């Protein structure tokens, strides 16, 4: 009696061990059906599940189910941090380029498989996913800043060509104001995504050879130029939360602004009355015309049970055809250079400017503390814009803040 009970116990344990082995072995090979959890932010998260690209992936990989969780951009960073802390990360996620350093450095991201070719992507976009010499994500779409300006009002002010240089930009802003616009341009007093193109174009950078160079001569020069627009009343001193520049652009109160590619479709859709009366131009040059590079990267988490399947999805989305299809869905600019030969992109005059601008961009450094360094740069920028500190003081303040926050 007793021995038979023991035998049953042994059998039960054996069965448990066997089933345990069984489940773990299926998760290692990608033959069985797999369910991936993917986080995606903003519009990308809303539109990805039903997009043509995702349907095509499902057709090609019937055994992989993808559950996309849509998260608003505003809370995404904090949510990812919390997920890492609670070890509840998804299999893969869309990441803002500037977060790659942070998450790459704490070692929760899987290294990109060697079959992904770096040369397919814009170099500025690829640089942003490399942390400590290893690629930990794949650029999905790119983003940069260019100048939007009202051509009709420029003509009225007697200027018929796009501003090429800093001088042209200043002259055009003054001309707009002189010919009846409330302001000449809209520059956000506390957003370095609009100031960084000035810094880069003056030959400066945030970091060079592992050292911050925010107090360089180029930095002071770009801040001096930036502050002029505020001093001369060519741009609003400050704006309320939730301010929408397209409204004042349409009314003509701020006939220029520096922003990203999504504004093209926003303006076409919501402000058709000014279609044909505005254009996009490269950021004005000083030493060069170099803009800020950002965008979205796809990263796979090391904790994931289905890394192979996740990378399969990432590589699928980075194919030329899928990049074009995704552009048609949501107007995200392809990170894969070859996709830009498609007529959907090369046929549009405004998009061409973006494609052109993307060849000369710089990305903020991929360091863990970028989010907070970014915030203090914005704070100093705001102080300089308000005239509380001189450009030189702001540059020194930025340098000091960045140096003390960064732990190499």
């Amino acid at each position, binding site marked *: 009696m007793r021995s038979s009970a023991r035998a049953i116990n042994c059998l039960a344990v054996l069965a448990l061990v066997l089933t345990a082995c069984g489940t773990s072995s299926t998760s290692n090979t990608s033959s069985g059906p797999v369910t991936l959890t993917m986080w995606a932010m903003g519009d990308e998260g809303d539109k990805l599940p039903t997009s043509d690209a995702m349907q095509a992936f499902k057709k090609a990989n019937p055994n992989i189910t993808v559950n996309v969780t849509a998260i608003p951009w505003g809370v995404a960073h904090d949510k990812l*941090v919390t997920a*890492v802390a609670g070890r509840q990360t998804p299999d893969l996620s869309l990441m803002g380029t500037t977060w790659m350093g942070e998450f790459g450095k704490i070692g929760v991201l899987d290294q990109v498989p060697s079959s992904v070719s770096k040369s397919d992507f814009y170099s500025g976009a690829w640089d942003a996913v490399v942390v400590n010499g290893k690629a930990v994500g794949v650029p999905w779409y790119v983003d940069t800043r260019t100048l939007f300006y009202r051509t009709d009002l420029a003509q009225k002010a007697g200027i018929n060509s796009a501003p090429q240089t800093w001088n042209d930009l200043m002259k055009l802003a003054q001309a707009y104001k002189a010919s009846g616009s409330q302001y000449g341009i809209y520059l956000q007093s506390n957003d370095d995504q609009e100031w960084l193109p000035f810094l880069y174009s003056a030959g400066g950078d945030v970091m060079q050879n592992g050292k911050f160079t925010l107090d360089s001569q180029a930095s002071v020069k770009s801040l001096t130029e930036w502050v002029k627009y505020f001093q001369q009343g060519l741009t609003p*001193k400050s*704006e309320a939360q939730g301010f929408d520049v397209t409204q004042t652009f349409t009314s003509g109160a701020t006939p220029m602004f520096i922003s990203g590619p999504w504004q093209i479709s926003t303006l076409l859709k919501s402000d058709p009355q000014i279609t044909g009366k505005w254009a996009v131009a490269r950021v004005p040059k000083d030493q060069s015309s170099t803009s800020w590079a950002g965008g979205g990267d796809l990263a796979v988490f090391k904790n994931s049970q289905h890394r192979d399947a996740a990378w399969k999805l990432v590589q699928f989305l980075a194919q030329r055809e899928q990049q074009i299809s995704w552009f048609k869905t949501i107007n995200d600019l392809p990170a894969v250079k070859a996709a830009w030969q498609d007529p959907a992109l090369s046929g549009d005059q405004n998009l061409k400017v973006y494609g052109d601008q993307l060849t000369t961009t710089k990305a903020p450094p991929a360091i863990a*503390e970028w*989010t907070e360094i970014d915030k203090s740069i914005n704070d100093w920028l705001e102080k300089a814009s308000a005239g509380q500190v001189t450009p030189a003081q702001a540059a020194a303040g930025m340098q000091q803040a960045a140096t003390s926050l960064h732990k190499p």
Partner: protein
Amino acid sequence: MVARPARRGGDVRAALTGYAFSAPYLILFLVFLALPILASLVLSFTDFSLGDLTAPLGAPFIGLQNYAKLFSDDNFRQAALNTAYFTVVGLIATTVLGLVAALGLNRALGRLRSVFRVGYYLPTVTSIVAIAVIWRFLLDPNFGLINGALKQIGISGPNWLGNPTLAMPCIIAMAVWRNLGNVMVLFLAGLQGIPEDVYEAARIDGATPWRELLRITLPMLRPTLLFVAVITSIGYLQLFEEPFIMTQGGPLNKTLSVSMYMYREGFSYFHLGYASSIGYVLFVVIAAVTALQFRLLRND
């Protein structure tokens, strides 16, 4: 002597029953309040940051450095100043206006009284987030109702929340408007607790209404005043939602509050150690302010 052991057993049983009944609360309190409070005290002596998430116990212990850093941190000093400004002005305005509203409602108005009571109290029971969003729209420089009204009479209104000197007064005005009802109800209850015969005696002695207010109403309202001051300043010192929704702490950090700075350090940058030390400083300040108010307004 014989009964004693039995009674002791009864004591133990009674105590056990008591603990058993309070266990649901006690367990929740210990796990979700006492433990985190203790853990954050320990955290405030470490340099816990994002990198320590994967191995939380490896966070370096740095003693009082977080606290030392606080006092040389420009952002924290600005946040502390802003919070003090908000609390002092807000507390005085809320108390005075709440008292005036209560006095008015207590004496006059007759039938309209309940309409006004509901009117003043309504903002208090409305979600602060909804209120802050609506106020942001009202104060919008281009499309807001307030500047629209000013335009009608030929004044070009300022950029309320975008102006470094006007932003905080706007937030104070909103907070006062929202908390007025709460304070008013407390004062009303206090006023109704003052016996009528005291006023009668005063009137017989020929006291003017003004003297009645100064010599009878205010002294007899002292316990209510204390309660209002303590509750309001504890709430105001933790200012968070209003600037979080309306200004994000800007412009030029002029509406950054201590709680907001703590949130930013803790949950945007994940400096949990530093954020914990901010939390403890805020806690000590609140305790000290409350103690001071008890001293000043105590009934001797």
